[in-house]
């Protein structure tokens, strides 16, 4: 955020101007006298937040902005100012500790950032000054400098590519450090630039810096002597971004356009908005309760104090006179300071240490995800990645899973399956194909052994070979083998039949579909050899090389859902090839051709293949000239370039003729079906949100088991809406009503929560909606309708086992997530995806998971957690999520509990000391209780506890739903813990109180004083609280043993030590030998043992009564489930026995008069 504001400040002077003008190489000849060169910021990167000077104030300010820290600061200040019972040290020390640790951590991080900044800023670069290569430090680069970059170097600022050593005026870069995409991207030099940059006289006009990595608009004016200035358009393909690395190219020269904090990389440094977990919200709610308890305690004490003092002789007996100052103080001021003093005395009820422990737990706990070897994927050599540790426990709370299809459910590893040319189906039969590579298989239009004409076949294959943006990656000397391995997208071809064995080749493309298509065409005899200086070379079936001039590429974009190329063949023919989704191609071709192909396309789609249609068009010279002019003009436009281009594209891509269609298979991810099944059994609702076609998506849903054969599909798509003659709006109303009746009203009420072992009689529903229908539901014309549609839609969806949303735009995905997120009960949502189009929903959902897939790294970058494969989601949620939730929920409850029973005796003591705010415990105990004596066991517990073993959690997915809806932090349980804390506090205090009715507790008749009283209570407290945790621990590793027994031993050791010395510089030696004397009294021993046992008794009792969950009982339960399932099979329709397997309750009961219920 700091960087953002910094940027804003720096941008200010330019804000009035929309464009910036840059003089390449600072050619002054162009500058007239009056012109003042605009000031741009230097190339220094500042990612650090602090300097040496502002670190302390700024960091402290930021830390105290947090409510908890601020609260403790206030308490501390009250202690300093007002005469309070405890010294400021008791709250100052922990606060100081927390603040210092945080400050050190942040200071260290900032130092690392400073170091990184320095490394970047002092990096040596070569700048061309008047044609001379001059070494410079990176931070001294100015806008307009011509910078030279060598291979494998990163660009020091955003550059416009002027010159490349490659013959085709291109260069390759990887943007791995920017968006994580490791594939090589091609960038082009500005056309028509003279080789000698020294004599280049040009200006660049371009837009002001903006963070979008993929957008850039600019114009270059080249001034040549005695010529009109030439104008060249500049786009993102000319812009080399800071942070990207030059590959495959020896050297380039570029002119700096954006520097320092104005580079796109710097502009993209933005903190993601913080997501807060449900547990955190519970903590805040509980805190509020405890704050109320604190306030009411202080209020009660203050009131009683003044009631008590009003009796004569109580306020100021002769033995205990007030000082003059106290006497002079105003009564109301005194009341107020008394109130504050009580607040201070009881403030330990809200422990500063809880925040520290919670954050340590989250921080350390998240390591277990990165360490998990099950998340390691040998293919990409990476494990899981944790981007935020704040949401660990949220993984155990997920109710809705929104998953992307391509790359998430499916592998995004495309394989060419079949094609259809002119209505005839061709299927490749592996390597044993005939020489021509084709064989016709039976399709819906079964014309046995019939083929399309050879001409059509070849046209189709040429189209496949030409209509793409694939590059051939040569493996030459300079190209190391490692580079080849780096290519995630690259599909190396190892079919020696088609390739000369000595020459290894790979294809590089932004979309794996394209590679699959090119590879498919290759199988049938047409090999794409590559693109050299705008000429595409194709090796045809006759092993002849055909040459095509690439005139224009009409790029793919998700809105048009198609792409085209315009080429000139060797014979001078102008051809436009277009490929795209059926829906975007069919309206643009002659209708009589459509029907023949549509059948194939639809059949392929239902089989789960990705289909693309291929069309072509011959362009006459005039047509081409018109298109060419239009395209060039649109490309040069500075404003609204996108829209203008789109218009020209649409104009050009009309009146084509359809040649055929392709089917590419996208295989399911490993264990996709098992994972989905596990998620559903865990009580999560899985929604598939995809941009893909309905048929394809539906088949994927069937394939991964989200839809079963018996699932009744409720479809709300354009197709069902266009049924009949009526308006869509009416039809929508009718369908929604009907589905609602079927899925919601007629369905038996589904019991919320509990185990989902059976849904015997329930009919499964699946819901399908497409983007267009969704936008109708969400943006209905009338406001009232919209609300009701939305509600209906949500209700239907919530009663369906699976929901499929197809044809979704990225923003719509986020809309759906948002809608579910804000629906009744605000369920916890999880989004999982791998592509840039999933980023919006990943950011929107409570938990965003990125898959380290093939579509770049944007999803991973924006996610909270990243995993290599979909199958890892199962363990992440069922095991890690469950455990994290259990651990932190217990941690939170335990913390409140232990502080309640810590402070309650202190509160009760006020009734016996004249409400004088006399602390029961010594200051050292007050301070150390949360820091040392009781902090480590709960931390160890919250990191290591495995109430149910990981294997069992994964095996029995239903266990996940036990924690649903924040089950462990419900008010009921909170009350239980609070009650327990209160009970313990009462036991501690009154147990010792009755013992002290005769304070002569030693066998030599000597008596104990108030500090002995406090020490006995405190000893009971520390032991009880620790042993209570020990009782809750179900997974005793050596660490637990060490920490639990170690803490107790430390307490004893510390008490001896603290009481064993006359402490110099201490005003009072209150605890001198108090602990040792206590231990010399048999009565004290006996009362300590008694009270500990009495406090733990209800716990032990509950543990016995509660159905225990050890390995033994697990087996028993499994046996029951087994018995139960056999019942289901035998008495499916006439249930006579019922088993209620109650996981949370006392018993496993069987009764014969109940109907099946789970």
């Amino acid at each position, binding site marked *: 955020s700091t960087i953002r504001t910094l940027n804003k400040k720096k941008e200010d002077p330019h804000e009035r101007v929309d464009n910036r003008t840059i003089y390449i190489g600072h050619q002054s000849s162009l500058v007239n006298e009056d012109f003042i060169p605009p000031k741009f910021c230097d190339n220094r990167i500042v990612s650090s937040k602090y300097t040496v000077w502002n670190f302390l104030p700024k960091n402290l300010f930021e830390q105290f902005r947090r409510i908890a820290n601020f609260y403790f600061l206030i308490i501390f200040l009250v202690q300093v100012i007002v005469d309070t019972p405890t010294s400021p040290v008791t709250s100052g020390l922990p606060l100081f500790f927390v603040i210092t640790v945080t400050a050190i951590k942040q200071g260290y991080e900032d130092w690392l950032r400073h170091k990184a900044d320095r490394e970047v800023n002092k990096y040596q670069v070569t700048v061309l000054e008047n044609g001379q290569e001059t070494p410079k430090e990176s931070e001294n680069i100015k806008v307009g400098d011509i910078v030279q970059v060598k291979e494998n170097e990163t660009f020091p600022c955003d550059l416009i590519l002027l010159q490349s050593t490659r013959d085709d005026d291109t260069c390759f870069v990887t943007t791995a450090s920017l968006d994580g995409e490791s594939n090589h991207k091609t960038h082009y030099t500005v056309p028509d630039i003279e080789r000698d940059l020294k004599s280049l006289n040009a200006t660049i006009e371009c837009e002001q810096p903006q963070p979008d990595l993929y957008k850039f608009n600019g114009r270059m004016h080249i001034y040549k002597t005695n010529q009109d200035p030439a104008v060249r358009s500049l786009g993102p393909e000319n812009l080399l971004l800071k942070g990207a690395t030059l590959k495959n190219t020896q050297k380039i020269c570029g002119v700096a356009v954006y520097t320092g904090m104005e580079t796109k990389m710097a502009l993209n440094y933005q903190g993601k908005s913080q997501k807060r977990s449900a547990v955190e919200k519970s903590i805040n709610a509980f805190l509020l309760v405890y704050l109320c308890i604190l306030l009411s305690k202080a209020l009660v004490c203050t009131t009683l104090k003044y009631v008590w003092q009003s009796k004569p002789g109580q306020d100021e007996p002769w033995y205990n006179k007030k000082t003059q100052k106290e006497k002079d103080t105003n009564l109301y001021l005194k009341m107020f300071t008394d109130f504050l003093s009580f607040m201070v005395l009881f403030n330990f009820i809200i422990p500063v240490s809880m925040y520290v422990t919670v954050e340590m737990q989250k921080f350390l706990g998240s390591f277990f995800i990165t360490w998990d070897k099950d998340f390691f994927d040998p293919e990409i050599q990476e494990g899981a990645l944790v981007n935020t540790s704040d949401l660990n426990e949220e993984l155990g709370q997920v109710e809705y899973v929104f998953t992307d299809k391509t790359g998430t459910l499916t592998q995004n590893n495309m394989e060419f399956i079949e094609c259809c040319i002119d209505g005839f189906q061709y299927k490749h039969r592996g390597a044993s194909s005939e020489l021509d590579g084709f064989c016709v298989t039976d399709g819906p239009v079964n014309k046995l052994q019939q083929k399309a004409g050879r001409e059509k076949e070849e046209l189709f294959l040429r189209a496949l070979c030409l209509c793409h943006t694939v590059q051939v990656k040569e493996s030459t000397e300079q190209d190391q083998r490692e580079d080849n391995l780096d290519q995630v997208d690259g599909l190396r071809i190892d079919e020696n039949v088609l390739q000369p064995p000595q020459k290894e080749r790979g294809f590089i493309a932004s979309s794996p579909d394209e590679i699959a298509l090119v590879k498919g065409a290759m199988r049938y005899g047409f090999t794409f050899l590559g693109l050299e200086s705008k000429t595409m070379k194709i090796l045809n079936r006759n092993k002849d090389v055909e040459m095509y001039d690439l005139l224009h590429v009409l790029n793919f974009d998700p809105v048009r859902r198609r792409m085209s190329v315009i080429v000139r063949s060797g014979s001078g023919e102008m051809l436009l090839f277009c490929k795209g989704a059926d829906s975007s191609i069919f309206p643009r071709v002659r209708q009589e051709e459509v029907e023949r192909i549509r059948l194939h396309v639809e059949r392929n789609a239902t089989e789960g293949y990705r289909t693309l249609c291929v069309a072509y068009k011959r362009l006459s010279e005039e047509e081409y000239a018109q298109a060419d002019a239009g395209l060039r003009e649109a490309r040069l436009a500075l404003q609204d370039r996108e829209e203008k281009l789109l218009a020209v594209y649409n104009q050009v891509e009309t009146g084509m003729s359809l040649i055929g269609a392709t089917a590419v298979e996208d295989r399911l991810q490993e264990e996709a079906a098992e994972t989905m099944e596990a998620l559903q059994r865990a009580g999560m609702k899985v929604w598939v949100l995809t941009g893909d076609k309905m048929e394809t998506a539906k088949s994927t849903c069937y394939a991964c088991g989200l839809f079963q054969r018996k699932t009744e599909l409720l479809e709300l798509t354009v197709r069902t809406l266009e049924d009949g003659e009526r308006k869509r709006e009416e039809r929508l109303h009718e369908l929604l009503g009907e589905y609602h009746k079927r899925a919601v009203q007629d369905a038996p009420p589904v019991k919320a929560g509990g185990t989902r072992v059976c849904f015997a009689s329930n009919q499964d529903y699946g819901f399908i909606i497409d983007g267009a229908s969704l936008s109708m539901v969400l943006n209905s014309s009338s406001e009232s309708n919209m609300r009701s549609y939305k509600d209906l839609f949500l209700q239907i969806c919530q009663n369906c086992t699976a929901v499929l949303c197809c044809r979704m735009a990225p923003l719509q995905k986020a809309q759906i997530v948002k809608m579910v997120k804000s629906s009744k009960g605000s369920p916890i949502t999880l989004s999982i995806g791998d592509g840039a189009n999933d980023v919006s929903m990943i950011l929107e959902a409570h938990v965003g998971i990125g898959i380290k897939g093939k579509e770049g790294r944007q999803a991973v970058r924006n996610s909270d957690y990243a995993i290599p494969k979909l199958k890892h989601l199962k363990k992440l949620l069922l095991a890690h999520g469950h455990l994290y939730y259990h651990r932190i929920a217990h941690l939170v409850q335990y913390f409140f509990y232990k502080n309640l029973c810590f402070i309650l005796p202190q509160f009760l003591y006020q009734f016996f000391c004249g409400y*004088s705010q006399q602390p029961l415990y010594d200051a050292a105990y007050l301070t150390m209780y949360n820091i040392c004596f009781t902090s480590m066991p709960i931390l160890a517990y919250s990191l290591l506890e495995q109430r149910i073993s990981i294997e069992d959690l994964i095996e029995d997915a239903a266990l996940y739903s036990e924690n649903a809806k924040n089950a462990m932090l419900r008010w009921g349980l909170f009350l239980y813990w609070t009650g327990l804390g209160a009970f313990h506090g009462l036991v501690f205090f009154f147990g010792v109180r009755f013992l002290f009715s005769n304070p002569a507790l030693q066998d030599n008749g000597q008596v104990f004083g108030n500090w002995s009283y406090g020490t006995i209570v405190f000893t009971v407290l520390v032991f009880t609280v620790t042993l209570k945790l020990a009782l809750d621990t179900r997974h005793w590793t050596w660490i637990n043993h060490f920490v639990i027994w170690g803490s107790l031993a430390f307490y004893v050791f510390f008490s001896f030590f603290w009481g064993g010395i006359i402490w110099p510089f201490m005003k009072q030696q209150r605890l001198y030998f108090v602990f040792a004397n206590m231990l010399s009294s048999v009565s004290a021993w*006996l009362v300590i043992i008694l009270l500990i046992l009495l406090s733990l008794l209800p716990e032990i009792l509950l543990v016995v009564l509660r159905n225990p969950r050890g390995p033994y009982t697990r087996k028993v339960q499994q046996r029951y489930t087994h018995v139960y399932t056999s019942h289901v099979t035998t008495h499916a329709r006439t249930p006579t026995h019922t088993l209620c397997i109650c996981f949370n309750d006392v018993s496993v009961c069987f009764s014969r008069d109940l109907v099946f219920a789970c």
Partner: protein
Amino acid sequence: MMPTSYEDGHISVSGAGGGSMPGKKPENTAFKQQRLPAWQPVLTAGTVLPAFFIIGLIFIPIGIGLYVTSMNIKEFQIDYTGVDMSSPCYNCSQNFSWNSSRPCACSLPFYLDQPYDSNVFMYYGLSNFYQNHRRYVKSRDDSQLNGNQESLKDPSKECEPYAWSSSKPIAPCGAIANSMFNDTLELFYNDPNGSKVQIPLTATGIAWWTDKHVKFRNPGGNENLPAAFQGTTKPVNWHWPVYELDSDPENNGFINEDFIVWMRTAALPTFRKLYRIIQRKNNMVPTLPRGNYTLEVVYNYPVRSFDGRKRVILSTISWMGGKNPFLGIAYITVGSVCFLLGVVLLIIHHKYGSRNNIAT
């Protein structure tokens, strides 16, 4: 280089574990894979039931032992506040004045109906006396009491308003010291033959050893105390300066045991403090035989103003300390509850188990 996100002073971790570097396979250690060998106790009825019985079986005898011990402790209390007109100390309590030079004395007769065999401990008890009031508890200077010369001359601020008197530092300073219990209690045995025998009272051994020998020190050693306390003044309510508390130099000044006992503030507003010990002479004669006694009181300590009470307690002591039936009763109760719960649980367990068997 990516800045870690930090919002609202909230520590958030970006890329915990430094992310996973490509090619770095997570180590397959038991700890990192959360597979540390662990003991997984299963608390079932089967394991806990015996524990209940064992607790019951241990606690009940202990409780009985404690109770019997407590019952065997002999204790006698006599209130000498003088609230009633009939009380011998009524006059003293009424005519109290700090300035009176002549101490008021009263004597209370009492009868012990059983002999006290072992050492007898004599306590004085105060009621409604808030020694645990915060203003009171902190009103002391431990450094002064430890013999520190600087603190002697310049008492801590905490002692206010009992730190300075007529521009001289008070030694010992503070409200606690100032309000030291100063009644003199003497015990006489009214021999059946008519003579009145004074019972010898030991004034040492009543304070914690560590207090007497470490925590409390006279400034400049125990010799020549008046010189050591030169330049200080006595607490306002005291009749004598601190160096005149006792004639024995080992029990004078700050290390006077009566003083040390008083300085250990009581936990509750009703408390007792050890005053004297009546040592057992020989095994043949009880320390305090059955019979009539007289308690001679020099009544210096006013408690009527705050509705307080004063009493004298004679008590024998056992290994568990003074008489207190609470522990015994508590142990017996908890033990029996455990035992009962054990029985109830056993019954439930039996039924519950058999039902399970039927079902399976």
